[in-house]
Structure formats: C-alpha cells, structure tokens
C-alpha cells in the first residue's frame, strides 16, 4: 500500500522536503513507517522520541495500523501562542 507523509517545521528542514510517498506492506503500523523514514532520512532519528504523528487530522500512537492512501504528518513539539 501507499501512504503520503507530510513534514512540518523542523521535520521539513531535516528531510529537505515537505512531502514523501512511502510504500508499505498491508497492515503496517506507524512504527514500521517511521523505521522506513529513518532509513531514508537519518537526520530525523535524533528527534524520534519527540516527533508527533497524525493520520489525517488526529494524533495516533506508534502502534496505529495504517491503510492505503493515509495522509501521515510528522512534526516536532508545538509552539503556538
């Protein structure tokens, strides 16, 4: 299956791109996606524990199972206000 990944704020600066398209086996979790992204974008690794992850517009845990066409977003801790 294919999911799109959006990078925001310093995640975008670290990857050098705003968006990536990743192919994953059916039933893959966010954790599996992260491992694949970390292999491709090693500069994301140091902030792996603080990275926030949303699928669509909702936060999801690392154990969340992805499905075809999901839009996944990766971003650092928030700083609004």
């Amino acid at each position: 299956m294919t999911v799109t990944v959006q990078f925001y704020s310093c995640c975008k600066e670290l990857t050098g791109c705003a968006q990536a398209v990743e192919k994953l086996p059916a039933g893959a979790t966010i954790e599996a996606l992260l491992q694949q992204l970390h292999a491709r974008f090693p500069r994301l690794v140091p902030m792996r524990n603080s990275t926030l992850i949303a699928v669509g517009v909702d936060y999801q845990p690392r154990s969340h199972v992805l499905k075809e066409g999901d839009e996944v977003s990766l971003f650092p801790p928030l700083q609004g206000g």
Partner: protein
Amino acid sequence: MKRELIITTEPIDETALLARRTMSHGMGAAVFFAGVVRGQEGDKTIAAIEYEAFHKMVEHQFALLFDEMEKRWPVESVRLVHRLGVVRVNEPSLWVEVVTPHRGEAFAACQWLIDEMKRVVPIWKKPLK
C-alpha cells in the same frame, strides 16, 4: 456555546474584537488574553516570529478543545484568534476571550484552553532576526 476561531495572517484587531463581544444577562465574567511577541527569544534579540501551521488539523484540534471546554465549564462564548506568518515584536500573535457566569470559571477555562492549545494544536514558530 458560541465559538469563533480565526486563523489569519492579518494583524489581530483587538478593538474590533472587543466591539463584537456579546454577553447575555446571566454572564458576569469576561477574561481576555493577548499573547504578544517579545523582543527576546532565549538569549537572542529578535525582530519577529514566523508562525507556521498545519491548517486543517489546527481547526480540527481547536474544535475538539472547544467540545471539551463546553463539557467542563459553563462557557457562553469562546473566541480565539491566532495569527500566522510573520508577527513583529510587540504585536499580538494570540488573542483569546472566554465569557462565563462567574470569574473563576472564566480564568480556569481560558488558561486551560491556552495550555491545551500549546499541547495539541499544530502551530510552530521560527524567530526572525
């Protein structure tokens, strides 16, 4: 509960927002907060902050917070404006107003909303020299 959320790159017009305030006869307290860009970020002197957002998720997360707020406190009205893009020092980036029957509720709800916003609403900032 009346809700108004404005995410904008325009300057926040506090006077216009104040003029649009409505309070029914049962309401006794309005708490406002204006968050203003400071000239220091850590040790560095800055000229502005650039705010970036994941816009669609910002609206959804604020909607969830407003739902929760309505369950916790008797809020008649909440209005929140967050500015995006470049906000210069001394200009407000955030404006919040909460209207309730009593003072304690308004302070508690307003502080809770800002704390939660900083936890779940995807907005980031970059200091500009």
